[in-house]
């Protein structure tokens, strides 16, 4: 007697049967263009994996969500010894970094590198994150320091919250400070 084995088909598990409780909160504290991206890319990836995501903007990170500043984020090699020329792997000397025009050139270079990868600019990227279910929050203290209110921020920022609110909101969440 011969028996044929019929194996069950190999099907990926996309976690639909398990109630996902994973939650991540990103704290965006930087306003330079380069530091705007790490949180956005990870938040977008987390959302694409069905993870609940919150992005909290504080201090210089406010520039990422302020209507008057979010389209104008800049990047400078000043203080960043890791910036290299695209050709030849040469470091940009710090003495050159404050030279007029360097900031504009560095910003332009960075934007181009990012665009070449198909990665959107910060405001569009935040649109995508919100469309994917991400939550945006603004820091109360930074709002007070900068003297801004909801009307100065993106419409999809869910609220200006204080530190205690943030701690409550992120109960059980993984935190990433950028």
């Amino acid at each position, binding site marked *: 007697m011969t028996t044929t084995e019929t194996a069950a*088909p*190999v099907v*990926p598990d996309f976690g639909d049967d398990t109630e996902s409780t994973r939650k991540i909160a990103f704290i965006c504290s930087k306003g330079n263009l380069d530091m705007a991206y790490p949180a956005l890319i990870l938040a977008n990836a987390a959302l694409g994996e069905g993870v609940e995501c919150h992005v909290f903007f504080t201090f210089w990170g406010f520039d990422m969500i302020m209507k008057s500043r979010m389209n104008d984020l800049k990047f400078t090699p000043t203080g960043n010894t890791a910036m290299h020329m695209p050709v030849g792997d040469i470091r940009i000397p710090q003495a050159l970094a404050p030279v007029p025009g360097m900031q504009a050139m560095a910003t332009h270079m960075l934007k181009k590198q990012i665009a070449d990868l198909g990665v959107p600019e910060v405001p569009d990227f935040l649109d995508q994150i919100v469309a994917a279910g991400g939550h945006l929050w603004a820091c109360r203290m930074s709002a007070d320091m900068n003297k801004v209110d909801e009307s100065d921020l993106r419409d999809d920022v869910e609220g200006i919250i204080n530190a205690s609110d943030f701690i409550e909101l992120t109960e059980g969440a993984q935190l990433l400070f950028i």
Partner: protein
Amino acid sequence: MPVTTLNGREVHVDDEGFLTEYDEWDEDLAKVLAANIGIDLTDDHWTVIRFLRDDFKTQGETATTRRVQTVGGVSTKDQFTLFPKKPAKKMAYIAGLPKPHGCV
């Protein structure tokens, strides 16, 4: 490389179950793949699946969520509605393509 039986025939898959041979897929198989993960394909689903297949042919890699939005014309929000929780992976699975490599 593992081989599994789907829709009455053998297909090559990777360890997770994603198809590895572009030409082993057809639209009938897509329905089986979708059913495997609990999705009922509507016309809106097919728009995405067909875009992914065509785009893979020209680009050589699976389109990311962003590309499906900007080039494929299906908004991120819609992608999440059609393929809940893990849209990028689900879309690739049903379309018989590898998971997208890009980040955004």
